[in-house]
């Protein structure tokens, strides 16, 4: 599934948060969104997945006009792993993942055995099979994030949006989450903080600065010392890591 978000413009009060930003995700492409805190990455993603309505611009998923379609229709194709997943009530891991089937259900429809099959598969992919009866609130941050990912997998989207999915996670969980998403083989748009992870997983990168797309292209083309300094106001040298043979970053030099 292809995503085309064109000329998005978001204003809150008098502050322009997104100014004329366009983002494209081709079929089965893993696209990264990088940029400093407060540059508008989350807002840009939110205006794509209908959590907030942009003042102007269009969002299309293939032929589906996202901004003019119902939430339900959009959620059949588009899954989101968001940043805030705290709640005041408790569900078991399995119940939580089962909620991912919501878009596929009519209001009065019961969960069928293939729904449980899909949930089982999602739990297996996120290695949560032993957690199904655990209470969600008792889990650690990394485990919670995996549950949310499992829920989004159970939603069976053709495009997944991830808003800083690896925040606060240790190295192992960062890799686990992104590898799991990559293995799904669907289109992905992910806001990322860690540039090395962006190099490792992304086919294409958009760099956001002050609500505008500052640069875009293959990770190796975009992540130059000049661009990084312009984005984050920090000196940086890039090198080819002798072990991974990928782009590496040395900051503050």
């Amino acid at each position: 599934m292809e995503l085309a978000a064109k000329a998005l413009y978001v204003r809150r009060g008098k502050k322009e948060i997104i100014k004329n930003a366009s983002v494209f995700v081709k079929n089965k492409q893993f696209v990264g969104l990088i940029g400093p805190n407060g540059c508008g990455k989350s807002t840009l993603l939110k205006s794509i997945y209908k959590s907030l309505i942009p003042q102007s611009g269009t969002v299309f998923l293939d032929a589906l006009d996202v901004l003019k379609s119902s939430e339900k229709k959009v959620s059949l194709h588009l899954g989101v792993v968001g940043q805030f997943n705290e709640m005041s009530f408790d569900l078991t891991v399995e119940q939580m993942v089962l909620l991912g089937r919501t878009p596929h259900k009519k209001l009065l429809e019961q969960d069928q055995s293939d729904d449980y099959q899909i949930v089982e598969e999602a739990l297996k992919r996120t290695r949560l099979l032993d957690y199904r009866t655990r209470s969600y609130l008792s889990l650690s941050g990394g485990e919670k994030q995996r549950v949310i990912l499992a829920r989004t997998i159970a939603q069976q989207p053709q495009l997944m949006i991830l808003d800083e999915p690896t925040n606060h996670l240790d190295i192992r969980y960062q890799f686990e989450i992104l590898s799991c998403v990559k293995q799904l083989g669907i289109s992905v748009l992910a806001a990322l903080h860690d540039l090395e992870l962006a190099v490792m997983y992304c086919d294409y990168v958009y760099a956001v600065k002050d609500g505008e797309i500052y640069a875009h292209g293959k990770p190796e083309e975009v992540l130059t010392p000049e661009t990084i300094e312009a984005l984050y106001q920090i000196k940086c040298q890039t090198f080819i890591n002798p072990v991974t043979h990928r782009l590496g970053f040395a900051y503050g030099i």
Partner: protein
Amino acid sequence: MVNQGARRGMIGYFYYPIILLLLFLIAISAIYSVSIGQVHIPFNRSMNILLHVLTNGKLGSSDAVGNQSYFTIIYQIRMPRVIFALLIGMGLSLCGAVMQAVVQNPLADPYIIGISSGASLGATIAILVGFGASAFFANFGIAFGAFIGAVVTSAAVLLLSSIGGKASPVKLVLSGVVVGAFCSSLSSLVIYFANNAAGVQQVAFWSMGSLAPSSWDKVPILTVVVLIGCIIFLFQHRVLNTMLLGDESAITLGINLSAFRKIYMILAALITGTMVAYAGTIGFVGLIIPHICRGLFGADHKRLIPATLLLGGLFLIWADILSRIVVPNVDLPIGIITSVIGSPLFIYMIVKKGYNFGG
């Protein structure tokens, strides 16, 4: 924490037996409830009379029915009262569970959006200012005033919280507090200037909540309202569950919560308003019953709503029984009983180790 998950799994396994047990207990308690009171009627006679009435005379012994005074006491006085207790217990617990999901806060109860103070204001005006005295509203005045008060208040809260964008849970709760405080002060004002000691006492008595005014002519409306509410919300578990996740996640699952939130609040306000109109404000039921059920079965509304309905009904039948036997020959307002049982129970649940508002 691992044990906790395992424990819930185990109780979850007994879910259907527990539901059946609750149904059985409700039936037994209802029969017991019509037996006791100032005139004690033996249990088997009550059962016979109930069977006789319920099956239109096909079942049940006509010997027992033959005793006309027993029949009158049970049929005219105690049966509507048990039905009231059952329905109001179900309705309050249902609205409690729904409001807790709607404002995403486990401390919500059916009155959170100012319904109780609005209904009190309506009842106060009806009693002290007066359309209660006119012929048309003679029997109907207080209930009518309370219902109008409840509905107008919740509409005001809904409007107030929708100003400047979507009605978020926090805005709902704050608007409820503000409008509630405003209504209370108006009630106080009316009471202060009313030169009517008997009326003031009636207001106080009404606000304690009581099942004493129950009668057959009020049963149909209450039954229809509460049962329709139950049926609607029994099928809303999917939306109620996504409500627990918050607006952001719900939208990504294809559900726009703010629309559902409004509909649910209006439904809950109509149900609560009807119950308040007939029986005053009965506290703690709507707060505590959903909590107990969540502790037993978890927060999944597919299981929570049926269990909440039955436990709520059972709880209020017993609160009603207690209100009639705690002090001999005195019919205590049931609101006193529910609060006396409810508050220590709630303290216990909070103090109890590992209680985390979910199960």
